[in-house]
């Protein structure tokens, strides 16, 4: 394989020479093919302009000084799960796949929800009240195995997912089921038409306003139908599926259209990608020859690996390690004000069939005023988190700024008096999970202690309780057994629906989510209207209403939205941080 690599290097040196020349000449005038796209509808035109702007920014940053070549070693918190994007639902897999496969649409670099056409030439035209999406595809694109990309390839991929049989494939294809409401005939996709080679028409059964934002997920990346068929990618059980296990020779599995090609995978040890010398978007071709992803679960070991030069980038570091990393000369990956997670204090209005004190709105508002969120952010996140300004983070599609209750103990006491709940009943069983840290929850126990102190200061009596995260906490929380508890959510896609409807307040089988027992038919109705809205703009209006309702009612208390810092070595350049921790590494170069 060493020999193979050398041949690759020669090829890529030749290729990158040409690309540098074209990038220097063309960066200002033809930043990306997107700008040439026909713009059949107004939103498409603005989106095309924004991808142009984004890639222009990256191109100009790169054009002056970018150096091609070299190997970039990236430390991830965990390994990839499968080499088939349609079968994964975890951040580590998606981080790798973001470099290799592309969907019809994607996110502009560095943004959380700025949807841009990728393999589509423009954003789709939407008709029939939001039930028909017509995509015009880019032409002249080939998959990394040489198979031409066209409408048939898109149809093949979407129908493959839809027809996954019960068992291993459906079990792992979480996102297809979650986004389209199930597989086979349950899927919201009624049919896919391909009137010609460059047109794909999705006919939906019901309008689905999250269709576009959800399709930016790399699990909906289009893979080469030739490779999928030759690699027998649908074989079950997955233990014998070499395509899914990424054990086929280079170029035969995870075959997409992206700037990097999947080379090989030693499970739990490393994943190697090499530059795609024939990448269709020449102005945004990769700079480095090779990326090696190294899964390092232990956060101390990951930071030490970076400090000692064993890796070049640590995608995620502990917020409390930011100062240490800075003092050893590393650059912090600041993912800015746009984050993709939320930690809440969840309040369950009914446990074991009995209403709790949280069914009283004044009690909920009192709790919201009692909590000193800025202090938690400083203490437990070393400042690497944001105090929420709504129920979903800034930058999420459908976000609306709300005035949430601030820290005001006097007001909390007054609200408690107003609530009419006798002081003897103001007792809180506050649960936090043990044996876990999550990006949105670096220190659950001590944060729970801080919350308990704040609640006691305004007149609550607090009993701190804990359960093991993996063993019982998650199930007890989701089954509605916990009264007040710390619980967070990492977004699947940065849309209001993913938080408000999927994770929290969407009715399930006509009942409020057992996590909250928060019965509010008006809210549910507004959210259903938002989901069924024929356009994003209309959907966003409904999502705004939903946030207004929540802000008035406070069925849960948003505590913080973590910034999820990372760090890289001084030789790394051109890294564009993204709030959802999904960066495109084609702009990165090393020197």
């Amino acid at each position, binding site marked *: 394989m060493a020999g193979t690599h050398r041949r690759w290097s020669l090829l890529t040196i030749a290729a990158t020479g040409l690309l540098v020349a074209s990038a220097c000449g063309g960066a200002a005038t033809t930043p990306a093919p997107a700008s040439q796209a026909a713009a059949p509808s107004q939103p498409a035109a603005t989106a095309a302009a924004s991808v142009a702007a984004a890639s222009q920014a990256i191109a100009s940053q790169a054009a002056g000084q970018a150096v091609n070549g070299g190997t970039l070693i990236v430390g991830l918190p965990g390994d990839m799960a499968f080499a088939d994007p349609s079968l994964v639902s975890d951040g580590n897999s998606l981080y790798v796949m973001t470099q290799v496969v592309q969907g019809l649409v994607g996110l502009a670099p560095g943004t959380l929800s700025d949807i841009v056409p990728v393999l589509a030439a423009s954003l789709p035209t939407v008709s029939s009240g939001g039930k028909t999406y017509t995509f015009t595809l880019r032409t002249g694109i080939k998959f990394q195995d040489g198979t031409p990309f066209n409408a048939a390839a898109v149809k093949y991929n979407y129908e493959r997912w839809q027809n996954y049989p019960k068992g291993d494939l459906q079990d792992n294809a979480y996102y297809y089921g979650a986004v389209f409401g199930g597989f086979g005939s349950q899927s919201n996709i009624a049919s896919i038409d391909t009137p010609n080679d460059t047109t794909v028409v999705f006919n939906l059964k019901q309008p689905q306003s999250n269709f576009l934002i959800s399709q930016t997920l790399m699990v909906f990346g289009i893979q080469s139908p030739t490779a999928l068929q030759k690699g027998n990618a649908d074989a079950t059980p997955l233990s014998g599926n070499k395509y899914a296990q990424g054990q086929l020779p280079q170029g035969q599995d995870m075959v997409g259209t992206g700037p990097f090609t999947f080379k090989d995978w030693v499970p739990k040890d490393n994943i190697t990608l090499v530059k795609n010398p024939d990448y269709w978007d020449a102005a945004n071709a990769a700079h480095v020859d090779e990326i090696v992803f190294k899964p390092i679960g232990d956060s101390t*070991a990951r930071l030490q690996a970076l400090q*000692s030069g064993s890796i070049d980038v640590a995608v995620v570091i502990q917020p409390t390690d930011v100062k240490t990393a800075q003092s050893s000369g590393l650059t912090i990956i600041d993912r800015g004000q746009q984050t993709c997670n939320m930690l809440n204090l969840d309040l369950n209005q009914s446990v074991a069939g009995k209403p709790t004190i949280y069914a009283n709105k004044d009690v909920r508002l009192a709790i919201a005023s009692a909590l000193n969120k800025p202090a938690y952010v400083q203490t437990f996140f070393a400042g690497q988190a944001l105090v929420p300004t709504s129920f979903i983070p800034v930058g999420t599609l459908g976000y609306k700024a709300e005035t949430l209750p601030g820290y005001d103990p006097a007001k909390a006491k007054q609200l408690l008096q107003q609530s009419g709940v006798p002081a003897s009943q103001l007792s809180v069983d506050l649960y936090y999970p043990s044996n876990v840290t999550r990006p949105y929850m670096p220190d659950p126990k001590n944060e729970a202690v801080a919350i308990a102190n704040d609640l006691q200061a305004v007149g609550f009596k607090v009993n701190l309780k804990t359960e093991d995260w993996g063993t019982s906490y998650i199930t007890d929380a989701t089954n509605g057994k916990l009264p007040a508890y710390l619980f967070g959510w990492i977004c699947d896609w940065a849309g209001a629906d993913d938080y408000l409807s999927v994770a929290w307040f969407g009715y399930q089988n006509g009942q409020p989510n057992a996590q909250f027992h928060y019965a509010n038919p008006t809210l549910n109705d507004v959210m259903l209207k938002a989901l069924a809205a024929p356009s994003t703009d209309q959907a966003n209006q409904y999502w705004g209403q939903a946030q207004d309702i929540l802000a008035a009612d406070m069925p849960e208390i948003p505590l913080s939205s973590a910034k999820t810092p990372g760090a890289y070595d001084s030789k790394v350049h051109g890294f564009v941080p993204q709030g959802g921790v999904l960066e495109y590494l084609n702009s990165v170069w090393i020197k």
Partner: protein
Amino acid sequence: MLRYIVRRVLGAIPVLFGLSVILFLFLRLLPGNPAVAILGQHATPQLVAQISSSLGLDKPLYVQYLQYIWQLLHGNFGASFVDGRTVASTFLVRFPATLELTTGAMIFAVGLGIPLGRLAARHPNGWIDGAVTALSLFGISIPIFVLGYTLVFIFGVELHWLPAVGQIDPRLNVNPVTNFSIIDAILSGNVNAVEDAVAHLILPSIALGSIPLAIVTRITRASVIDVSNEDYVRTARAKGLTEKRVDDRHIMRNAWLPVTTVIGLQVGSLLAGAVITETVFVWNGVGSWVVQAIENHDLIVVQSLIMIFAIIFLAVNLLVDIGYAFLNPRIRYS
């Protein structure tokens, strides 16, 4: 001798069978559902039920056990709940790394422990002996992860003398053929790669070898002092043999026996220590695999790995016992 070996192997069967029952029950009695671990925040009751059923966790416990043991009797260690890979295939990829690490640790422990023990025994209760004793105490009492992080911090992060984590620098593009990083480096024909692989082995070997080093040192010292007081040693000296000859032929030959036993017994503690060492040094062996499997509630993997560890432990003990016969012809097994 052969009969002895056969008897020992047959004797291992009920041990392993009993272990399989205890392990199976123990792991299943632990609270928690692998499906929840797999699904994480997506663990809705419906999906948990669906995945549990796919994994066969909804079947009665005895059915699950019989299925497991039936597979095991056919040499099938089962497959991971999480990634679907068979335990056997992953084991074959990861075990060489552990073997390489434990070998490195053993070379460190024995290579340094025996000379240190002999040195200490030469002047019992002198200052050298005191220093060696202090070193042993330090080695045996410092937790591996503390020593590991400290070594990485000093030699990797601050001094940049040795690599901090991993088995070989991925930039060298060494093709994994045998999964022994040093052998793979040699096969690649790249001298830098060999140096790099050896450099990667040094710190984890020291971390993992610290406890065996302490034990080997202490036992060697005690054993040498013990044998030195025997009559035949005095006789040998009285015959006018050189001190070196007395040392090599008369003292060490006899002192080897308890040392060998202890080295054999260290295999168990090395496998246990590898669990921590491999996690700290991001070493892709079976030790870090156990940790990941436990975190993921990957019951089949945990169970099969512990079974494999037990088999290795029993096999090594048998080898040690056989080894006695060669080291000391007076020992006969029947």
